[in-house]
């Protein structure tokens, strides 16, 4: 029995529970007044999915003796896991379960896509983080901040939808469940602040080790990482000054996360101490 619960099996379970949560949320959307138990069921599915995903990542971490961030598969799984964790903290402040539905769909998509692309998990950096716990903290915080930015993308999308519905007087259906404009504005501000803070700490930790061995990080990774951090920092400062608000802020957050996801490629390909090993294809 224990042999059946491999890391990938646990991650599959997690992804399928996220998917089930998404479908339950969709059923709720078809009814303006869905049964109260539906939201509870959605939360149970999401917590269950997150728990299995955690166990799967934990097993991989044990096997790799470090943070499970050894390849694109693990990074994408970790981003989904982080977004769900942040949702558990901020989701309760939202009316209805729409953010839960969005997060479930987002996490299910990331988790399932990563599981369905075997190439992402064929090789894994062995002790890729160089046995240095600080570098692991650096990597984990950086990827976690991507989870926060992922959730920010979802709330930005919700803000665009809410704005569209109010401007165009289309208030029923999906739009009925959206949080208020002000709530979305506030949560977006907090999420960008949280994401930038986490990424700043991550980069500070990384920088402290980088100055001791400047050649350990190549220029493309440095440029891309700093670029993402700087872009989000500028967004945060503009929001703080009231120069970038409402719909424009939401659009910028959406576009920026797309670019940030694209940056994962160069960052992943240029790791400290990267020594790929070929895993058995599954």
């Amino acid at each position, binding site marked *: 029995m224990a042999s059946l619960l491999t890391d990938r099996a646990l991650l599959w379970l997690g992804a399928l529970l996220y998917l089930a949560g998404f479908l339950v949320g969709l059923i709720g959307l078809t009814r303006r*007044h869905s049964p109260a138990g539906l939201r509870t069921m959605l939360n149970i599915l999401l917590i269950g999915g997150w728990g299995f995903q955690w166990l799967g990542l934990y097993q991989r971490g044990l096997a790799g003796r470090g943070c499970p961030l050894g390849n694109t598969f693990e990074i994408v799984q970790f981003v989904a896991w982080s977004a769900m964790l942040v949702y558990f903290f901020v989701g309760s402040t939202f009316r209805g379960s729409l953010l839960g539905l969005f997060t479930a769909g987002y996490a299910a998509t990331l988790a399932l896509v990563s599981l369905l692309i075997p190439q992402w998990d064929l090789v894994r950096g062995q002790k890729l983080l160089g046995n240095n716990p600080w570098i692991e903290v650096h990597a984990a915080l950086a990827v976690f901040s991507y989870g926060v930015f992922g959730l920010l993308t979802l709330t930005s999308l919700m803000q665009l939808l809410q704005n569209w519905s*109010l401007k165009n*007087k289309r208030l029923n259906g999906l739009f009925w469940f959206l949080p*208020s*404009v*002000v709530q979305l504005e506030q949560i977006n501000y907090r999420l960008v602040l949280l994401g930038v803070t986490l990424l700043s700490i991550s980069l500070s930790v990384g920088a402290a080790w980088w100055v001791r061995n400047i050649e350990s990080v190549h220029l493309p990774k440095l440029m891309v990482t700093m670029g993402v951090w700087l872009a989000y920092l500028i967004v945060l400062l503009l929001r703080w000054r009231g120069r970038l*608000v409402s719909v424009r802020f939401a659009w910028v957050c959406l576009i920026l996360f797309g670019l940030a996801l694209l940056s994962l490629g160069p960052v992943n390909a240029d790791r400290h101490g990267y020594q790929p090993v070929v895993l058995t294809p599954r």
Partner: protein
Amino acid sequence: MASHPAILFQLGASHHTASLAVREKLALDDARASALATRVGQIAEVSEFALVNTCNRVELYGVASSPAAFPALHAALSAVTGCTTAELDSAVILRQNHAAIGHLFAVAAGLDSQILGETEILGQLKQAYDTALAHHWTGPVLNRVFQKTFQAAKHIRTNTGIGAGQISIATVAVDLAGRIFGELAQIKILVVGAGDIGLKTVQAFQSRGATAITVASRTLAKAEEAAAHAGGWALSLADLPAAIAEADIIASSTSSADFILTRELIEAGIKRRPARPLFLIDLALPRDVDPATAELANVFLYNLDDLAEIAAENLAQREAEVAKCQAILADRTAALWPQVAHSLNAPHAS
């Protein structure tokens, strides 16, 4: 000779059965309600009763040992309200047993209300039942029926859309404000014009916790009068630009032939508070707010037609839920009736 089973009854009038003139006569103040209850309590055939007395209905629910109770109940109503026999005959409906339960369920669920799906009636029913309970007018039959009624009403509220969406102009505006601002307690409302519709809208906002109200009018005296009525501050239209920058919601209802709130005026106002949305409610005809303001980011403009259309959509949605509610209540009535019938056959009921 076999004993007659007791009868669960509902006897009364509502906006469905009585004209406004008759309803005015039937409306009971506390003293007359008490007098009616006293008279009903003296009818030997009535063993349990409760009186539901609202602006739109006067209904007696009770248990009678024989049909002889009903003329006596009519007489009691006539004596207390002053209605003639002819008026009562045309307005008062008598429902018995299964039908009485079904009617009470429908009333509690808001299906029988003038404003379909409203919730106030449930509170009024609870109050009527509490009063009856406190005076020992109820017994095992009515206690059971009312408890089941409240459960049924709660089930309907939770599992159907009968109460979803607002169906009056003012409450639709409040609902929209909730979608923009969430909590309304800290919201600043600016009312332009001292018209009745603007002040009614303010009342709807106040019922949801809004306290910061400012009234602007062409003459300060009118503004002050309206502000005193609404419990807010007053200013003249000359101070409008500064007030716009402070307001979260602007409800305008002047009789001006030109736009009072132009795009330029609103644009200048929101520049001073870019992160906060502005909700413009144009309640005037001809319109007070330049439609071009709707193009501004973070500004949401709704005029009378928009609000009326939303109210009509919501009402249509509520009406679409009626059949579902009726089916649920019919099942619950069918489930409850055998238990009530058993109690009515028991010796204590008569």
